[in-house]
C-alpha cells in the first residue's frame, strides 16, 4: 500500500559546498540518498517535497555541516494479505520468483491452483494449466502476499496465486 509519509533525515554537506545554493544541494543530496531505498518495512518511492531544512550546524572535528531535513515522501509498504502485481523472472520446479517493484516474491507450487503444473519440457520451463495460464519469465502475475520478512535494506515476500482473480494477467 502506498502512503504519503512525513519523514526526517539528517544530511551532511561538505564545506566545499557551502554557499548560496546550499539548500538546493541539501535537497539533491537527500533525494539521491533516500529515494528507492528500503527503510525498515517500507520502500521510499519518491520524495514529494522538502518542507523544512534546518539551519546547518558545523560538526566539530570534521567541519561538515549537518542539516536536519523534514520531507514528505511516497512510501510503499507491502502488507500481508495485500494483492500486488508483479513480473515473474525465474521459474523452477518448486515455484516461481516474481518482482513487484523492488520487492522480490516467491510463489511456491503449493500456493497455486491445483490445475497449474510445472512443465519442464517447455522452453523456457513454465507453470501452466494448459489453457490460458502460462507463467514463464516475463509474465505479469497478480499475487497475494502471505508472508513478509525484512532485513536492513532488504525485504522478501511469499506470494500466493491461489484465489480468485489471482495469477496471470491478461495484458
Amino acid at each position, binding site marked *: 500500500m502506498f502512503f504519503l509519509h512525513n519523514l526526517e533525515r539528517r544530511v551532511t554537506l561538505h564545506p566545499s559546498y557551502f554557499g548560496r545554493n546550499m539548500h538546493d544541494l541539501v535537497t539533491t543530496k537527500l533525494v539521491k540518498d533516500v529515494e528507492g531505498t528500503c527503510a525498515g518495512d517500507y520502500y521510499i518511492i519518491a520524495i514529494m517535497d522538502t518542507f523544512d531544512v534546518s539551519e546547518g550546524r558545523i560538526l566539530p572535528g570534521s567541519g561538515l555541516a549537518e542539516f536536519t531535513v523534514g520531507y514528505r515522501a511516497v512510501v510503499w509498504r507491502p502488507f*500481508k494479505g495485500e494483492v500486488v502485481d508483479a513480473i515473474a523472472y*525465474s*521459474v*523452477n*520446479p*518448486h*515455484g516461481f*520468483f516474481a518482482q513487484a517493484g523492488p520487492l*522480490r516474491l*516467491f*510463489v*511456491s507450487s*503449493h*500456493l497455486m491452483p491445483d490445475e497449474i503444473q510445472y512443465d*519442464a*519440457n517447455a*522452453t*523456457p*520451463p513454465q507453470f501452466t494449466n494448459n489453457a490460458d495460464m502460462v507463467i514463464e*519469465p516475463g509474465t505479469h502475475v497478480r499475487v497475494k*502476499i*502471505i*508472508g*513478509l*520478512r525484512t532485513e536492513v535494506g532488504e525485504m*522478501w*515476500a*511469499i506470494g*500466493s496465486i491461489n484465489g480468485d482473480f489471482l495469477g496471470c494477467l491478461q495484458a
Partner: protein
Amino acid sequence: MSKTIRLGSRPPYPITVVKLFKKPGDVIKSQEPLMQYSFKWTKEVGDNIRKETWNEEQTTYVSWNSPADGDLKQWLIKEGEVIPRDGPCMVIKEACSHEIQFQGLCAICGKDMTEVNWAAETRDTDRAPISMVHDQTNLTVSTVQAQRTENELQRRLLESRKLSLVVDLDQTIIHACIDPTVGEWQKDPDNPNHDSVKDVKSFQLDDGGPRGAARGCWYYIKMRPGLERFLRRISELYELHVYTMGTRAYAQSVAHIVDPDQKLFGNRVISRDENGNMFSKSLQRLFPVSTNMVVIIDDRADVWPRNRPNLIKVSPYDFFKGIGDINSSFLPRRRDLLPSAAADGAAVNGNGVPPKVNKAAVTEKPSALDELASIAGADDPAITQRQVEEQERTLEKQIKDRPLQLLQEQLDKEEEEAEKATTKSEDGSDTPPSSPPHHRHQVLRDGDTELQYLEQHLTRLHKAYYDEYDRKRASHRASSNVDLSSVPDVGRMLEGLKSKALRGTKVVLTGIVPMGVEIAHVDVGQQLVGFGAGIVTKIGHDVSHLVVNSLRPRTKKVQQAARIPSIRIVNQDWLAACFSQWRIVEEGPYLFDVHPDDRPAEGDATISDADETDDAVKDSDKPPSTPVRGGQILRIKAPAPRLKLVSASGETKELDDEDSDDEDDDDGDMEDVEDEDVLPDDINDGQLSPIDGLKTFNWGQVDDELQEFLASGSDDDDDDDDGDEDADTMDTDADETSPSSRKRKFEGGESEDAGDGTDAETAQDENTALSNGIGTRDGASVAKKLRRTKSLRGTSSLRNQYVSDVDGDADGDSSLLTPQVTGDEEEVSLIKGGLTPSLVEAEASATEADLDATDLEAEFEAELMAEFEAAAGGEANGNDGEKG
C-alpha cells in the same frame, strides 16, 4: 502430515507427568503449555554458617511447551507416568512442515522461519537445508521435498528416455578470451587468422564484471568445432545443464551465444554465483538425492571431487593459444595438464614466452589461494575477494599484453627469417598489410575433433543405460512404463564402459608425472586406471606402451624401453587421443622418435636410424623365429649395448660385466632402493645393466684391475670427460681388465647355477655372445658364454644398474654410450644373419624359453650346444668379416 514430537533433552529426567492440558483433537500453538510434569531434586537447606545443613528432596512442577503448531492427534504419555528418558510424547498434525523456504520465510505458509522458538530445540530454518535450484541460492527445500522433486525429474527423463548432462563451458564447449587482438583480426580480412576468428562471437559485460582495465571489455567466445551439431544431437538424448565457474552474467551470455533460443539449456544454468563453493563443483548442488541419471562433461576432473564416476573428462579446448581458462582463478590450480606435443614444439620455437607469462599469472598465485582455501572455509568472503582480484589482474594482463598478438608476431618473425633464408624477394612480411597473406601462418588453428568422439561416447552411454534399464524393468515386471526402482547408476555404467577402453595395455609414463608424486594421485594416473589400463612404474617385458613427454625425450625409461621391441614408445598425444577416443588408438602417428643416442643399436645406425621404434614394433610383431633375413639385423640391435661395452674394452673382455656381476651376487645385490624404483623386480628380459649394485662393489679391487689393464696397453677409446660418477663407474666397469675377471669367471659360473632363472637375459646374452663372440673367437667363447648364461641366471643386477644409470645421465654423457662402433660388429651381425640360420633358431627358441622359467635350463644347455656347433661352423666367416 502427522509428526511425532519428542520431549526433548531439556527436562531433567526422570520426570513424572502430572497433568495433560490438551486432549487429542485440540489445536495447539507453538510455545503453548501442553502438559505439566514434576521432577524431584535435592537441595542443601539449613544454616550454612553453623554447618547445620541437610539435604532435602524437592519436587518442582514445570509445564512443557509445544515446539510446533498443529492439531494434537494423540498423546503417547499418560498422566502419572514416570518417564525415565527422552522419548516420543505426542503425535500432532503439523499445520505446515516448512519444506520450502525462501530467504527465511516459509514459502508455503508465509511464516518467518528466523523467529526464535524457545520451546523447540531445532531452528525452523534447518528444516529446509538443501539448495537445489539453478539460479537462486536463497530458495531451500527439505530432504523430502528434494526427493520428491528429483523423483519427478527422473520420471520425466525416463518417460522421454533421456539422461541429464551437466556441461561445463570454459575450455569444454567454448574457449573465451578478452584479448582485443581477436577483435582486430576479425575486422581485418587480410590477417592470416581472419578465417579462424571470423566466427568468434563476442559480447560485453558491464554488470558485475571485472573492474579496472578489464571493465566493459569484449569477451570473445569461440565455440568448439561441431558444437552446434553436437548439442543438437545430444539434446535429444540428454537434458542439458550448464555448470560454470564464471559469473552468472557471463554464463548467461555464453549460454545465449551457444543456445540463442534457449532450446538446449533452457534456464538450467548454474554459475559460481550460485554454486556456494568457490573451488569445486558438486552434482549434489543440483541433484541432492540421486546422481544416478547424471553425466558430466568437463575439461577438469579435479573440480568434481565427489562425482568422479559420473564425469567424462574432455580434453581442454585451447583455441586462443596461451590464454587458458579465463575463470580459472576460481578453481584449484590445474595439475592435470597434459601438454600436447605440438604445443611444446611451439614453445620450443620461442613462442613459449607469452603463454608462460600468462600461465604463471594464472597458476602461481592461486596456489597460495589453495592453501588459504584449505585452511579457511571455501565460503570465506576474503578469499572470494582475493579470487576476484586475481581474476581481474589476469584479465587486465591479457588486455595489456595481448598474448595472441605477441604469438602472431613471433610466428611472423620466424617465418620471415625462414623466408629470407629461402627467397630474398619477399620482405617485410611481419607487417600485416604489406605482406601477401598466403604465406603467413596463423597462430590460431581450429582442428579440434573432440566433440565427435564425445558424441559417440554419450550416445553409447545412453544406449547402454537404457538397455540396462529395460532389462531391469523387464525383470521387475513393472506395470507402468516408468519404474524408478530399476534406475541403474549411470556412474557405474560409465565406469564399466570406460574400463574396457584400454584394457590389456600396460603403460609406463616417463617425464609426465612430476618426481615424487604418486602416479595414482595424478589425474593422468586416475584416468588411465579409469580406462582400464595397467600402470607400471618400471619397464618390463609385459609393458605394452611407454608414454614419453616430448619435452623430456631422453629418460632412463626410454632407453630401457628402446631395448624391448614389444614396447611401443609413444608421445603424450597418444594418451590424449586414447582418452578422447576411448580406445587404443593406432600408435603409428604418435610413435616417439627415440633419440639416436638412446637407441640400443647405435652400432647399426647406418642400417636403420630413421625410425627405430617403428622397426622395433615391426620386429616384435613377427614371430622371433622367422626373421632370418632383414629382421635379423634388427634383432641384433637389442643386445647392442653389450656390444658397445665389448668394443670399448676390447674383444676379449666381453664377459667382464658378467663376472663383476657374479661378484655382486656374492656380495648380495639389489640393496639400493633407487634400483628397485626404476626397474622391475624380475628382470626377465634383456636389461643389460652391468653395473647394478655398484654401491656394494669393491672399488679398490676394480681400481687395481683398471690400473693393471691400462698398464697392459689396451686401447681404451671411451670418452671420459662426462663428469658423471655413475657413468665413470660404468666406464671403469667396462674397462675392467680381463685377467682378474677371468680369474673370477669360473667361480662365478659355477656358483650361480642355482640362481633363479631369468632366461630372457640368458637369451639376450646369447644374442650378444653370438654376435660378437662367434666372430671373434672360436668355440671357447661359446663355452664361456655357456658359463656366463649360467651365471646370469642369478639376478644380474649389475646390468640393470647400468641401464638405469646410463639413462639418468643420458643427456650429459651420451657419448659414453656410443663408443666408436666399428663396422666389425655390424658386419658380423650381417654375416650371422645371413649365414647361420640354425643359430638364429637357437636364439629364437631361447627367447621362447624365457616364458617358462627355470625348468627349461636343461633345454638351454642343449641349445647352447647347438649354438656351439653352429658357431664352429660360422667361425671362419666371422673371422673373415672381422678382419675385413
